[in-house]
């Protein structure tokens, strides 16, 4: 019985706070160290374009359609094509271009290390000291 309860709890935790297949990372200059899903959505839908310190938010996307990318969009709650529709509208409105699509996760890591105010996502195994991993927290509501 105890085992069953434990297993169920672990599954719930994995499902709820899960998405361990993807790590949200930011440049060291970024001041926040944790992030909510809705917050991330605000950034990626380009509704928010600046960090609290006024630095512009620079977003990256992956060109290749691998598991990490899939996990990222699943976490966001919208498909990549649906996100692109949002970006298209913003682009037409002149509110900024879509995130730059990068060839690989390594390229993403490199870009984020070198670009201040940037944010992106990679495989959790690849996170280094040179970037700031953002802790994912559940939405309050």
């Amino acid at each position, binding site marked *: 019985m105890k085992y069953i309860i434990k297993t169920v709890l672990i599954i719930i935790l994995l499902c709820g706070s899960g998405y361990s297949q993807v790590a949200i990372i930011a440049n060291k200059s970024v001041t926040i160290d944790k992030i909510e899903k809705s917050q991330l959505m605000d950034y990626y839908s380009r509704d928010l374009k600046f960090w609290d310190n006024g630095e512009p938010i620079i977003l990256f996307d992956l060109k290749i359609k691998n598991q990490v990318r899939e996990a990222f969009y699943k976490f966001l709650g919208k*498909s*990549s*094509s*649906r996100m*692109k*529709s*949002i*970006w*298209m*509208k913003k*682009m*037409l*409105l002149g509110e900024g*271009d*879509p995130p730059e*699509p990068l060839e690989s996760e390594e390229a993403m890591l490199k870009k984020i290390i070198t670009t201040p105010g940037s944010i992106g996502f990679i495989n959790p195994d690849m996170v280094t000291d040179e970037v700031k991993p953002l802790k994912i927290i559940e939405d309050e509501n």
Partner: protein
Amino acid sequence: MKIKNLKLSRKLFLGFGFVLIMMFGVNIFSIRQMNRLKLEIDNFNNQWLPSALAISSLNLNTADLRRSQLQYAFTLDDETKQELVTSMISTIDNINDNLDTYAKLKQQKGEIQELLEEEKDLFKGFETDWETYQDLSFTIFRLSREDKQKEAYDLLDGQTKVIYSSINDKLQKLLSFYKNEVIEGAKNADLVFQATKKLITSLVVITILLSIIFVLWLIRWIRHPIRQLEKGAKKVAGGDLSVQLDITSEDEIGNLTNSFNLMTKSLREAMEKSKVQADRLKMQWEVLNETYLELELKSDSLEKQKSTIEKKNRELRKTMEKLKSTQSQLIESEKMASLGQLTAGIAHEINNPINYISAGINPLKRDMMDIESLYLKYKEASNNGLDQNKLSDAIKFSDDIESDFLFEEIKSLLEGIEEGALRTREIVIGLRNFSRMDEDAIKVANVNEGIDSTLMLLRNKIKNKITINKEYGQIPPIDCYPGKLNQVFMNILNNATDAIKDVGEISIRTWGNDNHIFISIKDNGIGMPENVRKRIFEPFFTTKDVGQGTGLGLSISFGIIEKHKGTITVKSKKNEGSEFIIQLPINLS
């Protein structure tokens, strides 16, 4: 268990239960079929129709976007361009709305029905194409922003065109898929409806038929035996008691039929029995009548016989009285006989001590004479002064008669006489005690003493021949006629001594309890065979020679013990001896 043997209520319950279950089954089936139909309609309303609408709208909107993009590429006028951008923004908004609506529908769908693989694949393909198309659009916008109109147009006309036609193709396919689903769904629903209609109709018909069959069957099982019973009852009412009905079931009616059969059977039996009894009574009446007539005849002769019997009765009474006096005479003579026997014994008994005395008398006389002579000699010697010659003469005489020895002899003779006198006295006392047999009053007496005095009288018969073993218990004196009890002891002891031919022993034991005392007199004499033992208390029964015994001794003893409310029993074995046990109550009243 056969249904036939169930109780009536159970049969009815079963029947109605069966009909109810059938009805219920039909209802459940109908509701299920209706639910299936409703599901089809729900699918139609909530899935296929809105999905088809969303996809068709998506198709129109993507076409719009494509058209605007193409126009944008060819237009140089900034105002028109701005208008086109606004139009494109609203188109994208519409597309996004379409996509959100569709996504929501598909989320719902999971609950209603599994997402169909074909639909899923088609939409996935659309999404991929749509993403590519958007990526291309980004590039095109960027190119036109950088005033690279030529490249932008090339891209728009080349790769983008291909992707767009793919998008269009996929959306068309999805639409036709939904169209098919809708048509199929409608067809399916119609089929289900038709089938349900048929099934429900036939089920209702079957239920009704089965119910009718069941009810008919039930009526048959109930009505047939009841009719049978009715007929049987009518027959019985008409006087026919031989009616026996067949029992066709084990329900209440079966029980009723069984009871009916039992009833007619017992009625029949009762009738037969009463008929037999009536015949018997009639016969008895005739016999009685005859007997009465005979009795009437006889009563006359009875009258005569009565006076004869009365005469005989009187004679009998006379004889009885005579017998009674004879009996008392006999008892008296028995008493005399035993007294006679006793007298002989007592005479002999007294003779002994008297012999002591008389045998002692002559020597005593002689000795007295010697002493007298000696006395005279001494008197003579001392008469005129002491004469020495005469004195020495007297002394010599004294020596001659051995005067020392003489005194010794006198002493011993006197002792013998004294003993003889004492013995005589004892015998006389014993006789007196014994002779209390004539006393007729109840006295308190000790049985042990009674036995002793009886033994005293029998001493002559006993001595040298028989050893007496006395074992007297501590018994209280009892209420009794002592003389009569002594007579009993005398009888038993006398017989015991007679039973011992040469030598032997008699054991006398007495003991008692709270209410009774017991006396056991046992000898080891010749004993009695069983046929003798049985008769010893009968009057005039004797084993002794004629003239030796009256045959009344033990009979009288038995009477005496009865008078004392006691019992006397005897155990005996031939050649081993006899034992008489007398039980007497301590208090006679």
